[in-house]
């Protein structure tokens, strides 16, 4: 199960498992995001290509409009996945 919402500081918080069954709900949420936002992944335990695709689509849209997503508190195993897929070149990333 994936939880997605805004934290107290206005950051986007992703918690749980970001798999293919959760991608549509996350896409709907991120479609409503504008500007430059921090995404806190501290409580995200798992991500697959379905989740990566949702993040990439959001980043493309936001960068084109002059904004973007910044990923923070990224665990080492998720950071490996982001690195393998070249996401470290298209997102600003801060590890835990």
């Amino acid at each position, binding site marked *: 199960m994936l939880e997605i919402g805004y934290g107290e500081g206005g950051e986007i918080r992703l918690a749980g498992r970001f798999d293919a069954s959760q991608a549509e709900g996350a896409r709907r949420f991120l479609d409503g995001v504008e500007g430059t936002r921090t995404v806190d992944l501290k409580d995200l335990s798992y991500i697959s290509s379905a989740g990566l*695709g949702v993040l990439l689509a959001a980043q493309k849209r936001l960068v084109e409009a002059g904004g973007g997503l910044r990923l923070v508190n990224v665990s080492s195993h998720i950071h490996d996945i982001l690195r393998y897929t*070249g996401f470290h070149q298209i997102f600003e990333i801060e590890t835990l």
Partner: protein
Amino acid sequence: MSMEKAFERSFDSLEGIFAFTGEFFARESIDPGEHHAVELAVEELFTNMVKYNAGSSAAIVLRMERCNGDLRIVLTDPDADHFDPTAIEAPRVDRPVEEREPGRLGLFLVRKLMDRIEYEYDGRRSRITLTKTLG
């Protein structure tokens, strides 16, 4: 020792699939550092079978076994078109964001995270075997 279970051809099966892999990890005392890679590989191949052969109602069978130092994962789709995941061209992951397109990352990651992928196709039965050497 091996475990095997059939799953309905639906993304909604993922929760049950992860419960199954979790049970296998616990039973075989698989290092938690290996869990994400194995779960990801299983999800990518299972969801590919769901997406690209949605017309079938046949269940997809997942088998996991530990053989000496290897973990072997076998996914069998009894009613599939030919689709060889070992023959897919890798996406360009070094492109700037405006040139990136969502998609094709799943099989790329499976190849990156697993040590061996074998594909067999016989009649309409498709079988993919993944091997990961445990550290």
